[in-house]
């Protein structure tokens, strides 16, 4: 396949205008299927534009690798608080994930339950739409209600509303201490109940998951505060103990499921419904983990099995990250909402240059 690698926004806009059919936008290509269309790579749109640690803000070009962003922030003891996941283990892809790709899929890790998703830390964006028009929205300040929030709308749009070229973020300090507490538990109902007690407490849990065998809780902050809150949580939930390992990256990336020869699903639903669906899927022989207090369910299902049939009464939505099971990879929205979404896509991409690939 042809690969186009524009070096700036003007060149990118020209390529979009000159295209005569759909394109495949690629950052690192770590979260995408193999392209069957000409590729528009963001590799040439890379670099830090502005970093002001004292204002907690970072402006960066969209093709910059996540590892570069994370390294730059680490030098000043700051970080991206939304903990973007790494799709390489599950998707078996190689390459370097980009910050643009992370925003395009609103990739958010365990801290979403407390701090928020990629969209919540996004302060502004520049993108080139399907007609080759450059659009700037938002800015680089923490509070901004000037006009409609198109930057956040881009988060999770998977590139269907335009190619992101520049992004600004709120970043946060790295806490002095990070601690993980665990409790043996093989029942998702009991696990989610324990997670709810922790999340309903004032102890500021920043990770709340279940890896199939253990309830996992994370707390972060100043050292004295972390040990105080750890003690209180152990009092609240008898049996919780400190563990030294860091189980969060594995839980975030679905690594315990990645090696199985199965379809991989990611389901966003109400936390208490996470417990219900987990029980149903375990019964049916799936492997399951939970994050976000139960609000995010990962499942490895027999190839072709229809996970959505099990959740019709529960609400929420399921994305098939890997595999070919029945139905589309993305969960269909209700008709009235889908009509709005496709209306927006027609506005920003009238010629279908960025039409969904799968």
């Amino acid at each position, binding site marked *: 396949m042809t690969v186009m690698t524009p070096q700036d926004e003007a060149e990118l806009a020209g390529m979009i205008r000159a295209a005569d059919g759909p394109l495949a936008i690629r950052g690192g290509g770590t979260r995408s299927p193999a392209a069957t269309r000409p590729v528009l790579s963001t590799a040439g749109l890379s670099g830090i534009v502005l970093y002001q*640690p*004292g*204002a907690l*803000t970072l402006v960066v070009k969209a093709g910059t690798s996540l590892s570069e962003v994370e390294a730059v922030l680490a030098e000043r*003891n700051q970080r991206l608080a939304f903990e973007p996941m790494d799709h390489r283990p599950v998707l078996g892809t190689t390459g370097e994930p980009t910050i643009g790709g992370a925003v395009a899929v*609103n990739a*958010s890790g365990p801290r*979403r*339950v407390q701090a928020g998703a990629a*969209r*919540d830390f996004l302060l502004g964006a520049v993108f080139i739409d399907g007609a080759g*028009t*450059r*659009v*700037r929205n938002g*800015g*680089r*300040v923490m*509070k*901004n*209600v*000037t*006009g*409609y*929030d*198109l930057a*956040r*709308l881009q*988060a999770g*749009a998977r590139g269907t*509303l335009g190619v992101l070229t520049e992004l600004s973020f709120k970043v*946060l300090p790295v806490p002095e201490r990070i601690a993980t507490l665990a409790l043996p538990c093989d029942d998702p109902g009991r696990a989610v109940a324990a997670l*709810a007690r922790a*999340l*309903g407490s*004032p102890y500021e849990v920043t990770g709340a998951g279940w890896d199939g065998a253990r309830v996992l809780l994370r707390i972060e902050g*100043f050292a004295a*505060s972390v040990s*105080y809150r750890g003690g209180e949580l152990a009092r609240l939930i008898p049996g919780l103990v400190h563990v030294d390992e860091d189980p969060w990256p594995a839980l975030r990336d679905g690594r315990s499921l990645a090696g199985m020869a199965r379809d991989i699903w990611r389901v*966003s*639903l*109400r*936390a*208490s419904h996470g417990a219900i669906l987990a029980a149903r899927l375990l019964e049916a022989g799936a492997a399951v983990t939970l994050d976000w*207090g139960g*609000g*995010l369910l990962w499942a490895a299902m027999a190839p072709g099995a229809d996970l959505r049939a099990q959740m019709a009464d529960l*609400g*929420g*939505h399921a994305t098939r990250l890997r595999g070919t099971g029945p139905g589309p990879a993305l969960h*269909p*929205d*209700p008709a*009235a*909402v889908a009509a*709005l*979404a496709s209306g*927006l896509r027609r*506005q*920003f991409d009238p010629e279908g240059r960025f039409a969904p690939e799968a």
Partner: protein
Amino acid sequence: MELPRPSPLVMERRAEIVARLKAALPADTVIDDPRGLLAYECDALTAYRCPPLAVVLPRSTAEVATALRLCHEMDVPVVPRGAGTSLAGGSLPTADAVVIGVARLTRVLETDYADRLIRVETGRTNLSVTGAVEADGFFYAPDPSSQLACAIAGNIGMNSGGAHCLKYGVTTNNLLGVTMVLMDGTVTEIGGGYMDAGDLDLLSVICGSEGQLGIVTEATLRILPKPEGARPVLMGFGSSRVAGACVSDIIEAGVLPVAIEFMDRPCIRACEAFAHAGYPDVEALLIIEVEGAPAEIDHQLGLIRAIAERHDPEVIRESGSAEESAAIWLGRKSAFGAMGQINDYMCLDGTIPVTELPLVLERIGALSAQYGLGVANVFHAGDGNMHPLILFDANKPGDLELCEQMGADILRLCVEVGGCLTGEHGVGVEKRDLMTVQFAADDLEAQLKVKDVFDPKWLLNAAKVFPLAVTEGRRP
């Protein structure tokens, strides 16, 4: 400020329009007598007033849908209204518009502590959402100073914030789902009790769209467990510039208070006279609040004090009791009211990068001298959201216009240093004509394209947010 000329086509059908609304809705939901309409002629931007053609106050989503469907059929403009506390003229009617208000939709539909959410009808006031869950140890985080009066409807319309948003985020970060009626009467359910959007994140554009995309009748909101405790500290400085520098240093040091509020001397004096909060008489005051268990609070305040000491504070005073804390916040939250008692003022709402605080405060001082109008500064310093209050005399001819010019200069300054026109109050009619300072033509066009999808006839609150010249061919 100019409003579009009322459509003669609508005005001459007034009787028919009211009759059709009355025929389709319960009798007491439609107001059309001139005295009744006066109550809806303005919001909190009282300099601008205009009674609407009629007001509809539905009691259900279905009634909202009926009213919208009829207005859509008859090509009648609609202005959605919550509690009418907008400071930007967001809920200001036009003479040819039907105001659809959600004031009667106030029920709590569901509370779920295990899933940490509440579902309410949007006419419910912000404070009474917290009121519904606080006995059980929870609260709804966004806390506009107007929270006793303003409704969730308007909070969503404006993406409102408040003092504690430094830690907890603004409305968009705490909104999980809505029931929204489109202009043609279609009822949509967007989002819900779960966190990620299915396909496009439509809540992003709905929140902060100033009543231009639909009428939100129900909302699912995130609720949080109350912290164990919270304690504010007051710090007084010899100049605004030094206080501003102290704020940047605190942020850079990695301490994240829940709130950092700033007031200068004119504002401090007004608040003190009004609320008797015990504020010291200094040039610049910071109120910084931290949360947690007593030992955690002591630790964080220790770090903050150490940073503040480097800036030679004149006063540092920690709250010693719940009553003192309440008094400190009452003073701050009544700042606008207090200023209003002693002066006419115009309240600005620009945001700047916090690193620019000292520079911007200095330049606001220079503008104040240049225009000969006093300025009182009160703002959310932690996130750079400024509320300079420009003082003027409404009875003095030309003073309001002078004040508006100076306000525009300050907002241009905010944009120039990397900030924006409005951090939480919204654009409304007030900042509408400044939008071209912040946005290029293509940037605005992209926003208009979103409205085209939700409201193809451009009937919903269409005289707001965008300069009239920019929306010319689209508005009816």
